[in-house]
């Protein structure tokens, strides 16, 4: 499995003679086989995404360090909480959403990221957190059917609320996250004035399209709604539009006012392989590895140097190209950490009303 080259032998020798802490930073990245016998458990969201992470992060890490990486998942908030709460989690590195990162950090479920073991300087500072390192950026976009409209296509969120110009069923997430932001943007609030959200105003705006809305709760459902022509426009993730379009669906997206969110790699509190886990996260920060993920499934690198090697066919689908980045903004996960419970209750009540 591990190919022995002159470099790995030398690095291995260096690892054998030096205490680990004394190893220079770059030696770690270059394949000191000092983790032989260590097993790191990596948990993510399964499917094509985890396959990409496995190929881009886990395999190079295993090759370089001699560690064994076991794949597990899917990531599940209840499971994560139970594990971290027990003090001896089965998972060492977990891919979580930005929203959960904030909550878990507040609840003391995460290990602090060790800047001595992770090259945080490689990552765009907006995607670095005390308790997690951003690995991909994705965005909520205005997706639309390319065959449903005859007078142009919807461009901005206000168009989603314009039932005259763009008639037909809409789709929103079955949660206040992103839906409220979209409503306020449509109502003319500037992205930098969004938080704290004016919930009253947002729900009032949403009232206007409620009867025409189908709510989705899983990403695959959002995709299916477009494929089945059940809806003509709505909120959907950029990667999902890419996937649906690849599979022949008549769907496109607008980048105007895209709302960006980040997935992070974290280490659950009490991980028995904390240092090895940090070093797996470090492997993720390498530009080429991130490029590989992006080319496999169209999620953006957080190391902006990773944008260089992107397949030109994939590039227009990424939310972190300079152009698309300018059109969008990053969702405030801190706001949602503090307000999700309250606003979810209100969301449910609004749906029932």
């Amino acid at each position, binding site marked *: 499995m591990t190919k022995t080259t002159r470099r790995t032998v030398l690095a291995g020798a260096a690892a054998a003679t030096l205490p680990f802490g004394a190893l220079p930073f770059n030696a770690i990245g270059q394949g000191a086989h000092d983790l032989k016998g260590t097993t790191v458990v990596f948990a993510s969201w399964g499917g094509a995404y985890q396959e990409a992470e496995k190929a881009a992060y886990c395999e190079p890490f295993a090759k370089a360090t001699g560690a064994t990486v076991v794949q597990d998942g899917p990531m599940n908030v209840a499971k994560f909480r139970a594990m971290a709460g027990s003090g001896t989690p089965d998972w060492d590195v977990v891919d979580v959403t930005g929203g959960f990162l904030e909550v878990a950090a507040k609840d003391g479920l995460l290990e602090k990221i060790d800047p001595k073991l992770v090259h945080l300087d490689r990552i765009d500072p907006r995607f670095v957190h005390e308790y997690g390192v951003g690995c991909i950026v994705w965005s909520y976009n205005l997706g639309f059917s390319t065959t449903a409209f005859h007078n142009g296509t919807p461009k901005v969120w206000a168009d989603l609320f314009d039932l005259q110009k763009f008639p037909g069923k809409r789709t929103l997430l079955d949660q206040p996250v992103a839906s409220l932001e979209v409503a306020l943007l449509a109502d003319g609030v500037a992205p930098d004035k969004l938080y704290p959200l004016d919930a009253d105003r947002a729900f009032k705006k949403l009232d206007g399209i409620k009867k025409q809305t*189908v709510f989705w709760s899983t990403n695959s459902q959002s995709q299916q709604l477009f494929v089945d022509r059940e809806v003509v426009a709505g909120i959907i993730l950029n990667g999902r539009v890419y996937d649906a379009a690849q599979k022949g669906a008549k769907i496109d997206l607008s980048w105007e006012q895209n709302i960006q969110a980040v997935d992070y790699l974290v280490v659950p509190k009490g991980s028995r392989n904390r240092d090895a886990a940090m070093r797996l996260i470090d492997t993720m920060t390498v530009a080429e590895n991130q490029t590989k993920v992006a080319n496999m499934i169209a999620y953006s690198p957080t190391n902006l140097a990773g944008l260089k090697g992107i397949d030109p066919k994939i590039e227009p689908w990424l939310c972190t190209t300079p152009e698309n980045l300018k059109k969008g903004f990053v969702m405030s996960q801190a706001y949602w950490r503090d307000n999700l419970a309250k606003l979810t209750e209100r969301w449910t009540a609004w749906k029932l009303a």
Partner: protein
Amino acid sequence: MKSIDSRIWLVLPAVLVLAVAFLGPVGWLLARAFTFPEPGLQNFAAIWERPVYLKVLGNTLLISAVVTPIVVLLAFPVAHLMAHGSARLRRWLIFLVLVPFWTSLLVRAFATAILLQRHGVVNSLLVALGLVDEPLPLLYNFVGLLAGCVQVLLPFVIFPLYSSMVRIDPAFMKAAATLGASPVRAFVRVYLPLTLPGLMTGGILVFISTLGYYVIPALLGGPRQQMISQMIQDQIATFGNWGMAGALSLVLLAATGGMLLLLQLTVGLKEVAR
């Protein structure tokens, strides 16, 4: 004094499994209702104070109350044909009822969605036949939820009903006719009461199963068909609020218990267990 049946030891494994895999965790969750995040009744106070919880609970009970009679009405003729038809017909019917029973709930929910969607089989057919001009809204609303629940729950009524019906001696109906009862009267006074045990068992199974439904309302229902299990799931998976989840579960359990009590008072559970 009667000595204890020595076969009682044979149930021990089942009881152990239930205790470890069911009573323990469920008890733990329900206890959290009173202890998480701190000891007290704050979770119940929250449910009481914030109208959305009681509204969803009411919604859940209402949906179950609508689903149950529909399932029973649809199941009755099937069970009847199964019990009194030819052996060949019975085998076919049992097979047809069992096939979907073996299929995963999720698969069936998605299949139902495919049938009912705007450009789905049902709507395309209706439009092609000229019965409607516009596709009917059959999905992501009460109709979709109903279609999903009813088709999934039918076997739960068909089989208990069938087992009640096969035990009815056909001579009873003849006797009633001989004594001057019209077919309707014979059915209402003789046949129907004899099917009651199966009817009640099936009805209760359907009602209680529907109360706890999660996948079907999430996939086929609309915004107004939110059910209590979805809220319990949210509390655990999104908010990590075991206390609220426990409290909601306890309220659901109490509602279910209340229904059973009502049944005991009106019909009598002995009737059902027979």
